[in-house]
């Protein structure tokens, strides 16, 4: 910076555009940024459709916020009115049923998209240097998503809302010494009550917008390093990249259209398929439903909770199962990113995906002996995968490695 321009003011003013666009851009450099980050942004030319799920998740989030705003215009956050206000949205508010079903189902599809997105990161090694922070911001968003969905599920004040909220908040009572104080602070009463649903409504909004904030950090960190790709190699030159627009915008649009056709199909034909019918019964603080289950996207973690026969132990295992993901970038000792070139790790990752589904199934079953046993094996593999296999396989395995993205694409062509 020259001495007669202490704030770099002149630099800010110089926009590549002219006219109105230039006038705005020189004062608010958003247009410049969007062009650099979303139109010209170079991505590896070997990206496959797994790379579309980040954008899909983003659109789910936008849809949730939009439908949430319109729901919020009719929803009443009190123990007295909550259930009836949701019923009113379903019956009397014009198109209220659509907006609510949209919100309910987008929440589920948001998780579907994010789980695929996370699997992509695991399979192609996107969590490794230099993308550790991209991955960590992603995991933070996943945590907030789970929080937001849990808070939201309490709002319609059905039986599952009520008892789900009771069981989940009671997890905190397992913490020694301060547990009960934390529980009272969360609930604002001695049980899940009017005070609870009121604050959960506020926090449901707050966390949803906090996720939007984290998306910004996720994208900034991603755009510092650029995207990973199926080969796991960094592009060596411009020939190995494509500009985001039009190549990825078109590809992602295609993926989104297909994804949202599925969303629409479920939304219009089976809107309650991922929900639980007990939630259409008003909350009753005196009677617990005979079989309480969380929403499907929490089931693997719920199975881990129940696999441990000790209250505190179960809670620690459940939170631990997510905590280990945060340190995966440092647990995995291999220099090679993509599973396509790591024959042993590839099997471990695929088994991990299978384990996820097995635990999901177990979480939905009653806590009887055989299911608990399988949940224990599943839980053991979960931790084995992160704490033992990730460091060990990196040492033991001899990976194959393509030299460049161009080689990777040539090999792929030769195969097909």
């Amino acid at each position, binding site marked *: 910076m020259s001495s007669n321009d202490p704030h770099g003011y002149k630099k800010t003013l110089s926009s590549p555009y002219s006219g109105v666009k230039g006038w705005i851009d020189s004062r608010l450099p958003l247009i410049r940024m969007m062009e650099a980050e979303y139109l010209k942004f170079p991505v590896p030319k070997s990206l496959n459709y797994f790379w579309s799920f980040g954008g899909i998740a983003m659109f789910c989030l936008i849809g949730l916020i939009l439908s949430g705003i319109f729901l919020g215009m009719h929803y009443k956050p009190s123990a007295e009115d909550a259930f009836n206000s949701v019923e009113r949205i379903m019956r009397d508010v014009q198109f209220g049923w659509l907006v609510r079903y949209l919100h309910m189902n987008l929440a589920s599809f948001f998780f579907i998209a994010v789980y695929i997105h996370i699997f992509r990161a695991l399979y192609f090694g996107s969590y490794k240097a230099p993308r550790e922070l991209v991955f960590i911001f992603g995991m933070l968003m996943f945590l907030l998503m789970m929080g937001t969905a849990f808070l939201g599920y309490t709002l319609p004040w059905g039986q599952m809302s009520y008892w789900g909220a009771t*069981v989940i908040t*009671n997890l905190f009572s397992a913490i020694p010494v301060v547990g009960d104080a934390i529980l009272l602070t969360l609930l604002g009463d001695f049980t899940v009550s009017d005070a609870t649903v009121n604050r959960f409504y506020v926090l449901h909004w707050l966390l949803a917008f906090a996720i939007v904030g984290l998306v910004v950090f996720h994208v900034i960190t991603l755009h510092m390093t650029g995207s990973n790709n199926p080969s796991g190699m960094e592009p060596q030159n411009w020939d190995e990249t494509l500009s985001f627009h039009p190549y990825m915008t078109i590809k992602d649009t295609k993926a989104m259209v297909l994804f949202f056709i599925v969303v629409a199909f479920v939304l219009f034909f089976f809107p309650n398929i991922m929900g639980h019918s007990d939630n259409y019964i008003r909350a009753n603080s005196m009677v617990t439903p005979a079989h309480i289950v969380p929403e499907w996207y929490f089931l693997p973690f719920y199975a881990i909770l129940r696999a441990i026969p000790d209250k505190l132990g179960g809670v620690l295992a459940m939170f631990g199962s997510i905590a280990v993901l945060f340190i995966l970038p440092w647990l995995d000792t291999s220099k090679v990113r993509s599973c396509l070139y790591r024959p042993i790790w590839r099997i471990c990752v695929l088994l991990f995906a299978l384990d996820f589904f097995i635990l999901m199934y177990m979480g939905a079953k009653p806590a009887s002996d055989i299911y608990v046993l399988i949940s224990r094996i599943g839980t053991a593999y979960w931790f084995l995968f992160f704490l033992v296999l990730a460091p060990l396989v990196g040492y033991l395995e001899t990976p194959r490695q393509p030299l460049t993205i161009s080689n990777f694409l040539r090999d792929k062509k030769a195969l097909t």
Partner: protein
Amino acid sequence: MSENNKPRRDFIKLASMTLGGVGAASLVVPFISTMQPGKDALALASTEIDLSPIPEGQSLTVIWRGKPVFIKHRMTDEIQSAKEINLDDLIDIQDDSARVLQDKWLVVLGVCTHLGCVPLGQKTTDNKGDFGGWFCPCHGSHYDTSGRIRKGPAPKNLEVPPYVFLTDNRIKIG
């Protein structure tokens, strides 16, 4: 701005940052306090119950602080099985006499000490679990006729709320 001013400036900087920090941190107290149960919720903290309508062998559920309280009019064999057990078999060791004021009446919170569900066993037709008291369907905890945890993930016995007998047939909880 001579170098002599530096210690003075450092002092002002430190003092103002400390004051600002302490001031901001002290806001935590009122903010977190608002999240606690309000005075109205605390004020609802006692309930009186007439026991005379409860026949032997049956139970009543009442609400105290928004939680269900199980009042069980125990039969002789239920009292006996609660008393005549080997205390070492218990997960949360407690003698039955420490859990009741009068043997006939067991008063416990109907809140599973695992994660807060309401156990089954209040109705005569309910599943009462392996020990004839209550059974929590959420994750399978079994309680005996003294409300003590015998099997399953719950760590503690069903809590006995503070209560007194006002007359032989009347109790006050809280």
